């Protein structure tokens, strides 16, 4: 327990941790402020204004259509050019498209949950990598092992301190984030459609966000511990982004591999956070008389994405523990 307390203090005392958390807080506040100022509450006057705008545009389009018709039917003009002309209808100018942006909590907040989870996951990865990487490169790890010559216990306790800290941070940030956006929705949108089922869905999504943050923290920590330097984790990540996102993505699309997006990391993150993602292969055609040509589709679900996250977590943390146990500390 004393080792755990010491490691938690060491982690929270680090300027790097504090600066990153301050930066994250400022970014989140900026996003919330942006959402506040770019949305507004919809009332009778906004609806009337949107309806008037839609009607005005419909009138303008109709007049233009009539002028064009007259022009193409005039003597000397080519009447064939009138054939493809489209006559606007009232449906083409619906009032809802002229409504000012408003924050519908049920519809818009899930994107904000994903934003929070992605940002915290990035911070958790970097702080996790730096926490153990700096210990290795500064000689702090060796010092600690002279005091506690139980390598797995020391590394495991460090990881535990990191994961517990980010669990607490994610829970607190999620609660505040939800509260802020409930406020924004009430002031600049609506929470009317929120049912208990919708709240439960939001809570489960935030829980999946927490899992994403913890896996990111553990991967950063594990990679930096394997390489015994913070730069190892950051280097591997940059390498993975270049190889998997740009290199592999380009090669697979050139090779016309079916569902090439399934090899890209963000697709799996979306599948995890949004519960599923449907990929479609537009080069295929499944003809039906009712629906015409339908592309092949592949649905990635959150259990599949969860399995992948768990696999990466076990692989990297396991490898770092194995290396800690068996490699000399020089």
């Amino acid at each position, binding site marked *: 327990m004393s080792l755990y307390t010491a490691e938690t203090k060491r982690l929270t005392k680090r*300027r790097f941790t504090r600066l990153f958390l301050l930066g994250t807080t400022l970014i989140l506040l900026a996003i919330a402020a942006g959402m506040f100022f770019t949305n507004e509450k919809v009332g009778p006057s906004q609806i009337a204004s949107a309806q008037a705008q839609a009607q005005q545009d419909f009138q303008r389009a109709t007049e233009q259509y009539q002028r064009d018709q007259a022009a193409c039917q005039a003597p000397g003009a080519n009447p064939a050019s009138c054939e493809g002309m489209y006559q606007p209808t009232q449906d083409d100018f619906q009032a809802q498209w002229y409504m000012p942006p408003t924050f519908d909590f049920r519809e818009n907040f899930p994107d904000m949950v994903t934003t929070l989870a992605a940002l915290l996951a990035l911070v958790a990865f970097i702080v996790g990598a730096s926490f153990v990487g700096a210990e290795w490169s500064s*000689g*702090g790890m060796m010092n600690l092992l002279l005091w506690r010559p139980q390598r797995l216990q020391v590394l495991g306790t460090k990881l535990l301190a990191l994961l517990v800290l980010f669990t607490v941070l994610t829970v607190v940030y999620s609660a505040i984030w939800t509260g802020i956006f409930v406020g924004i929705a009430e002031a600049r949108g609506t929470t009317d459609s929120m049912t208990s089922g919708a709240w439960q869905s939001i809570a489960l999504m935030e829980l999946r966000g927490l899992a994403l943050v913890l896996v990111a923290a553990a991967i950063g920590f594990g990679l930096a511990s394997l390489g015994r330097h913070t730069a190892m984790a950051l280097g591997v990540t940059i390498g993975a982004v270049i190889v998997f996102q740009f290199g592999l993505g380009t090669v697979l699309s050139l090779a016309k591999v079916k569902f090439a997006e399934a090899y890209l990391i963000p697709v799996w993150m979306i599948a995890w956070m949004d519960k599923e993602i449907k990929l479609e292969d537009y080069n295929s055609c499944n003809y039906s008389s009712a629906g015409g040509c339908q592309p092949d589709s592949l649905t990635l679900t959150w259990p599949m994405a969860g399995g992948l996250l768990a696999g990466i977590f076990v692989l990297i943390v396991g490898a770092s523990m194995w290396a800690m146990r068996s490699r000399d500390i020089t």
Partner: protein
Amino acid sequence: MTAVLEIAGLQKTYRSRKGVRRALDGFDMVVEAGQVHGFLGPNGSGKTTTLRTLLGLITPNGGRMAILGREVPAHLSEVAGQVGAIVESPQFFGNFTAQDTLSLLAEAGDVRKERVTAVLELVGLRDRAKDRVKTYSLGMKQRLAVASALLKEPKLLILDEPANGLDPGGIREMRSLMRNLAESGMTVVLSSHILGEIQLICDSVTIISAGRRVAAGSVADVLASHTSSGVKVRLEPGVDMRGAVELLRANGAQVTVEHDHFTVGNAGNPAQITRILAEREIYVSELTPTAADLESVFLQLTGTAPVEGRNRQVDQSAVAAPTGGWGQ
């Protein structure tokens, strides 16, 4: 006396693409309780590898080690609380203060918080305890490292180059600190290249070269057993020193001529000198054995004495072969 530290036949081999390197090749070492023990060796001889292996940071390929009577690394966690150590250059987190650094170590090691203040006072960092470590000089970091090693009131203190970066006053303070600790019953193992310091502080020494022990015992015994067989010879004033030198050289002596005397380097039997010279009626006014110091014994044993015109490489240390004395 009981042995606080025992190493027997320790082996460590590093394999790389360049081949196999034996860092420790059957190394032995014994340190008795209450002693200040010097651990000497040239760069790359295996000193730090030995200390790291002893402290569980490196896994040996063979041999056995025991600290305070317990086999390590198997029982290292049982004795770790009684062993304070610094290995190589002390490195600490620059943005933490000395107070924070030691407090975190104390907390991780279940040590009383009062010890932090006590050791900071002991190593002379009390007034700078709340400054960030990155503002410290090398000598101050060294003091902090010693403080961290002393924090748990160890029975065995292992210090690798503790005088590195210390000013002359600091070296003297460190010397008296070591002495005081030994007098309080603590056993101190001290690795250093400042051989004069070792000779002043230590009761016993172990010298390592090329991964093997080349000498061990009390400082006096090591000096006595490896004292050079050289003698300083001074003749009566007015006597032809050049003639005497040529005469001895003709008889196989290795003579080095100084300003007003000469030295016979391989005088296994000094009486031979007086006999040869007396036969030619050359009389000796002074015949004294050349006193060896730890540095010359170290250079002789490790084969690291500088040779004019040759640049010795770090791995070029050797187990020096004993030389036979002239005249024996």
